[in-house]
């Protein structure tokens, strides 16, 4: 188990304790596999074996019977960081590297509970936060959710909001 796995497991545990919704643990990928191309798309029909729910369920296990018997719950019906990584590879191969960058940010956000994520978004709106508050979220993203790209996003916003007057009290 890598540190990341431990961290994710810990976060999931915390979220579970709080009764929040989350994506849970995700199967980590090996990094030396060849990137997917547009020819591997759609994953649904061409690579169902690569796609799992946050709890490790495969697509063919997402059935009405399993929903009715509560074997599949709402939390199972979410995308994982690994699937976002694969879709990012497909997008990049189709010439859309900007989409891949978005999916990389998104992959980091899958483990953040809905409510906290909405709060973070609201904090980034104009005149909502002080520089320190934005940097605190940046820190939270980095340390609590292992989301370095998004941590950088908030830190960058904090700088620009200061120079371009979008911080709390600037209006």
């Amino acid at each position, binding site marked *: 188990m890598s540190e990341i796995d431990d961290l994710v497991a810990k976060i999931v545990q915390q979220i579970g304790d709080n009764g929040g919704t989350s994506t849970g643990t995700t199967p980590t990928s090996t990094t030396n596999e060849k990137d997917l191309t547009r020819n591997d*798309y759609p994953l*649904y029909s061409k690579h169902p074996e690569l796609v799992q729910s946050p709890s490790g369920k495969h697509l063919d296990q997402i059935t009405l019977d399993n929903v009715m018997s509560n074997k599949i719950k709402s939390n199972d019906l*979410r995308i994982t960081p690994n*699937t976002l990584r694969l879709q990012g590879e497909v997008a990049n191969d*189709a010439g859309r590297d900007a989409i891949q960058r978005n999916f990389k940010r998104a992959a980091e956000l899958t483990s953040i509970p809905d409510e906290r994520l909405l709060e973070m978004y609201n904090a980034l709106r104009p005149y909502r936060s002080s520089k320190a508050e934005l940097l605190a979220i940046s820190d939270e993203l980095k340390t609590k959710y292992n989301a370095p790209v998004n941590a950088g996003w908030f830190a960058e916003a904090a700088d620009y909001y200061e120079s371009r007057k979008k911080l709390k009290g600037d209006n």
Partner: protein
Amino acid sequence: MEGPNDPKPSIKIENGKITEMDSKSVKDFDLIDLYIAKYGIKLENAEKVMAMDSTKIANMLCDPNVPREDIIALTTAMTPAKAEEVISKLNFAEMIMATQKMRPRRTPATQCHVTNIRDNPVQIAADAADAALRGFPEQETTTAVARYAPLNAISLLVGAQTGRPGVISQCSVEEAAELNLGMRGFTGYAETISVYGTDKVFTDGDDTPWSKGFLASCYASRGLKMRFTSGSGSEVMMGYTEGKSMLYLESRCIFITKASGVQGLQNGGVSCIGIPGSVPGGIRSVLGENLLCMMMDLECASANDQAFSHSDMRRTERLLGQFIAGTDYISSGYSSTPNYDNTFAGSNTDGLDYDDYYVMERDLAINGGIHPVTEEEIIKGRNKAAKALQGVFEDLGLPKITDEEVEAATYANTSKDMPERNMVEDMKAAQDLMDRGITAVDVVKALYNHGFKDVAQAVLDLQKQKVCGDFLQTSAIFDENWNVISAVNDANDYRGPGTGYRLQEDKDEWERIKNIPFAIDPQHMEL
């Protein structure tokens, strides 16, 4: 377009960073400039492309012999002012030619609105099934009263999946509330994530490029498709244009979208169409902004979604560029109900235009995204959707839907035909449903419990697609078997006559369009 105060296109790159863009130096950059300069332009070829003659690039755009991907390599290395300059070289017919080639998805489609002024949920379900049968692969609702949002979203979801599995639906409300509905699985995508071309208006819209970019990633993190929205005239209406032309400001919005890694954009005047629609060349410029979006390799939902004239000829004029060329969504959307019930303030085309629209498709042999359906099929679909929603409401403990309401919704033209509901009770129930943490899984169970196994399966299949993420790719829609159709596996390959999407080669759809139910065979005409 061609505004006297629009900046001259320029770029300066030092040490891998843009230090000047469109005649502005980095120290004067506002948040939009900073964002585009950092994330929105491919720098490798930028200086070369910026030095190219704009008329030459415009020529390549409408020349069928130049492949789409060659154009994308240029456009993604331009600045907003350069892109505007290229578009301004094209006349309307050339824009149509270019749009036909630059649309990301090979197969054109269109989107609809499903609303009513009393937020009647049973009617929404019936109208959604009705629209799904006609072929709209995407459906959008909104509210007359904001607190109805969860009920409208659920009604649309159930109705659309009853009409045709594979339709995706959205509920346009305030940003955070809209994301919340998506997280619960009540919607499949979102579109009203607005961006603006000047810093002041962006701020008035209560966002920054960074917050919108973050929101885009939030959607993807929940497996939800999304696109941004912008449109000529919004900065005029909100009072801060900085003296720039509408097309230049729109170009900035398109670049913000690209920079965010969002797969698409709804643009083309949209709800502000009254502004570009009232100035010389305005409707040409609106097609130009759709084209600009597509040439940046973004999905384009090309507006045609708000009434701006009562003249039938001008309504058709508004539509025809996108209709002839074909776009990812010709309208976004077409009002599936009569405009009386359209809570987006009325669309350019509505339910009463269906027959004329079908004939336009038939006469010109153009796939405008929808097809005729028999009255029997429509009645059956509407009735089933209303009944399915009746079951869902009962199971979720929502205010009762009576048999009388089901019957009325089956045949309703507008909400005038619907019995009154207790709206206060509905709104309370909507809030309670959110407080109880109800999700799409509960909707699936409710449908199953009431014998609507096929609809339950369709709602579940949509959730399954969110796990898989195929529909996060550019211009994605589904067919009735949940096969994804996007710019990745259905990339536009138009290269002139004999290539690209041809309606006559899409035999099933051409049959449906040809067979307008009200055509009379002269051989069987009775005098």
